[in-house]
């Protein structure tokens, strides 16, 4: 990970104190308490490596979903609108283009026009 928690902020604090130009001791201590509590809080979050793996899988999952017929919501919406406005018949070129772009592995009834 290139963005380790608080790593950027430690550097930033050295250059440019964020809370105030001249912190009172109790304000400084309060900021330190918040920083420490924030570190404890961050340590209890889900594993970022697992989240990163889920992110890497998104392009693959999208393709897999399409190839398995798991229809994206956006496509379902388009198809529903097609049927609503054309009663099952495709009339406009724009709709025809959208229809043609549906995954080729969809069932025959979804491909037929």
């Amino acid at each position, binding site marked *: 990970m290139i963005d380790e928690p608080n790593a950027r902020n430690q550097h930033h604090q050295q250059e440019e104190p964020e809370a105030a130009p001249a912190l009172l001791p109790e304000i400084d201590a309060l900021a330190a308490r918040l920083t420490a509590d924030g570190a404890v809080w961050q340590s209890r979050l889900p594993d970022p490596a697992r989240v990163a793996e889920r992110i890497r899988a*998104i392009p693959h999952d999208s393709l897999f979903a399409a190839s398995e017929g798991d229809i994206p919501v956006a496509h379902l919406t388009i198809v529903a609108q097609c049927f609503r406005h054309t009663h099952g018949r495709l009339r406009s070129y724009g709709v025809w283009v959208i229809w043609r772009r549906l995954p080729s592995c969809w069932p025959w009834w979804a491909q037929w026009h």
Partner: protein
Amino acid sequence: MPDSEGTKSFTAIVPLYASAMLRVAAALVGPAEAEDAVQEASMRAWQSWSTLRNVEAVRSWLLQITLNVCRQWRRGLKGQQQAHMQSLPEDSDAEYHHLLAMLETDPGTSNHAGALDLRAAVNALPSDLRIVVVLRFYAGLDATEIGEVLSIPAGTVRSRLHRALLQMRDRLLPSGLASTTRPEMEGRA
């Protein structure tokens, strides 16, 4: 949908920011929902990946998407497909109120009482101050990043942080002590 080059760049770049996205999401919707919020934000980033013009701005772009997903979840619109790159209004307390979850009351530290007091003081802040405190100390963003995510100047972020710390000090210190040391620094950037 991105092409093969887009897929490569997405899988190479976006996971690098998983930690930052996770911390922001956890700060906004709570740790229990953070992972799913990041997944949703990443899905939207994937769908819009081909529209990203400046790769150097990808971090703030991803954090903005994460913030907007969290905002929609907080509003009860979880799962709906909406435009996700709109900015937050600068001074809308209602917007921030919708955005923020309360910090959980179980701090998980040996100093339970102190941490509870601290988080209660954070939760008692007005929403526009609380969000900068949460993003600064719990999500680990600096003032510039917070400004980019919230679409406000970094100076405004610093000013709000300062006001928030003053209010928290007044709440946490025994009455009488705080008012004797209050500085004349309430101005906004």
